[in-house]
């Protein structure tokens, strides 16, 4: 078993466009205080930010969990539904169901989940009507 060094939990509200990215900004600041390669921090930050935006624009709200291990950073993004109808489709680049409000924010390119997967060393997604759960693991070199 990996030893957990630190764990932070951030609540993310649905449709809270004004604060979109606040959790990921805090996550990035936390990671900058420990000695991790900046390119790893950037990968975590981008994946976290996309996941946070997804919770805000697509879900009924949820939480982001940052776990720091000796050799790995893990982000969990768990929301309270309504779930993704077709996960395979959502994972394909360019597919989007984003609202106009989300598009006005600069999102809705259909790159969120593909981006998250791209930046992850290990990526898991499960989704049903009760919620979508992402696990994003990024190894520290």
């Amino acid at each position, binding site marked *: 078993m990996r030893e957990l060094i630190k764990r932070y939990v951030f609540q993310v509200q649905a449709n809270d466009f004004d604060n979109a990215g606040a959790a990921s900004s805090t996550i990035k600041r936390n990671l900058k205080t420990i000695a991790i390669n900046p390119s790893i921090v950037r990968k975590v*930050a981008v994946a976290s930010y996309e996941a946070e935006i997804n919770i805000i624009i697509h879900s009924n709200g949820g939480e982001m969990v940052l776990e720091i291990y000796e050799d790995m950073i893990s982000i969990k993004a768990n929301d309270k539904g309504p779930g993704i109808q077709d996960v395979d489709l959502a994972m394909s680049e360019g597919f989007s169901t984003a609202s106009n409000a989300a598009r006005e924010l600069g999102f*809705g390119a259909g790159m969120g989940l593909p981006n998250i997967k791209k930046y992850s060393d290990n990526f898991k997604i499960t989704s049903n009507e009760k919620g979508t759960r992402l696990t994003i693991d990024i190894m520290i070199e």
Partner: protein
Amino acid sequence: MKVHEIRELLNAKLYVGEGLLDKEIIGAYASDLMSDVLASNYLDEKAVLVSGLNNVQLIRTAEMLDLSVIVLVRGKTPHPEVVEMARENGIALMTTTLNMYNSCGILYAQGVKGFSNERAD
């Protein structure tokens, strides 16, 4: 190219980031879609981001990618919260009345190439 040269070429107004005017920029990326910017993991702090998106997500995106220079195009006046967030994150923010195509064209003609997936590295 230095940041102050970008400002001069685009006749841009600098809102925040005086301290970054002598910073060297080696490439650019232009988009209004932040997820497309975020997909660009080859970007780094030596890139200038050219965008017409006038909201805090523009700054958040730059923050996540460690970008430090943004040109807001099409004559948009940045919202105060956008300027403030840029200041908090040490990001230079300037605006030009030029549109995105012409802004990029001017920079490209002066040797600022696009960061892209096609880079050999």
